[in-house]
């Protein structure tokens, strides 16, 4: 499923860029774009990794740690550890989040569209190779003598009856499978 969605995503992106490359007016691509891929709305943001500004600025490493600071650090060690932990979590999250607010509106040149379109069709070709094997398989031929097979003796009724009974028991057993909840699924996450 993931491969399929990925392929659909690249197809949609390719379509989008092909349309853009035909358009004369440069369009601001820093704005997020919503594409519809297989009924899912995909939020597409195009951004150069080098242009990403971190949401949270790193703390000033030059801050002097003199005697006065030590006194303020006389708080229990647990609190400062907690702070450091929180800060590190925040920093990690901020690094992974892309800011979608439109800041500068630099348009993309025509040739950049073409480049992107080419990039995406290469990606698409790669994915298509792996996906083409998943086409719906045609019906296998069970026999070359359908009339003979259909005309031959029927399965004895007692056999059918026995098997239906077994299948009914199996169905009943399967339908009784259920989850036995023992503990809470969601708990409070406490930092000691």
């Amino acid at each position, binding site marked *: 499923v993931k491969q399929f969605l990925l392929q659909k995503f690249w197809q949609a992106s390719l379509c989008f860029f092909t349309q853009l490359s035909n358009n004369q007016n440069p369009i601001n691509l820093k704005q997020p774009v919503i594409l519809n891929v297989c009924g899912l709305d995909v939020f597409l943001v195009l951004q150069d990794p080098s242009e990403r500004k971190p949401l949270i600025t790193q703390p000033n490493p030059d801050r002097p740690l003199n005697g006065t600071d030590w006194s303020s650090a006389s708080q229990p060690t647990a609190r400062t550890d907690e702070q450091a932990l929180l800060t590190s979590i925040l920093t990690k999250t901020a690094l992974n989040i892309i800011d979608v607010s439109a800041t500068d509106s630099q348009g993309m040149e025509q040739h950049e569209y073409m480049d992107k379109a080419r990039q995406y069709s290469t990606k698409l070709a790669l994915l298509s190779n792996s996906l083409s094997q998943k086409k719906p398989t045609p019906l296998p031929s069970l026999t070359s003598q359908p009339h003979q097979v259909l005309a*031959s003796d029927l399965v004895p*009724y007692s056999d059918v009856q026995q098997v239906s009974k077994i299948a009914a028991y199996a169905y009943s057993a399967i339908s009784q499978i259920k989850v036995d909840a023992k503990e809470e699924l969601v708990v409070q996450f406490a930092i000691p």
Partner: protein
Amino acid sequence: MTTSALTQGLERIPDQLGYLVISEDGVLASAGELENDEHTAGIIMQMVRTACRFRLQGAAEPPFKRMSGRLNKTGHLKSLTLPHTNTQYYCSQHDANQHSVLSSVMLEDYVYTVTVSGQKVFVVKRQINQRDPVVV
């Protein structure tokens, strides 16, 4: 194979009450009690597509040549047997609402037999003449 060549053989099957020849595009031929029965054709095609995906131990072919079974009132295939192999494999499919399957003797005296050949599905409704003594 022309349609008449396909159906001639089916017509001659003893105790047949009707038949269907179905392709991916739809019903190619129908007769008897199954004449124009696209509803049954649709159900059986679905069953065939599912059953043809069965494989044993990484084999390339489905492990059966013919399926037979009945349809209950709501049109779900009630039981399915797959003979014509060295060992017999059975499977059964039930309507979600059915609570008990074998509460009574099966009163219907027919069975649908189904096979696939050359991208076409052949269905014959056959009458069951000999009844084994009922096991209660």
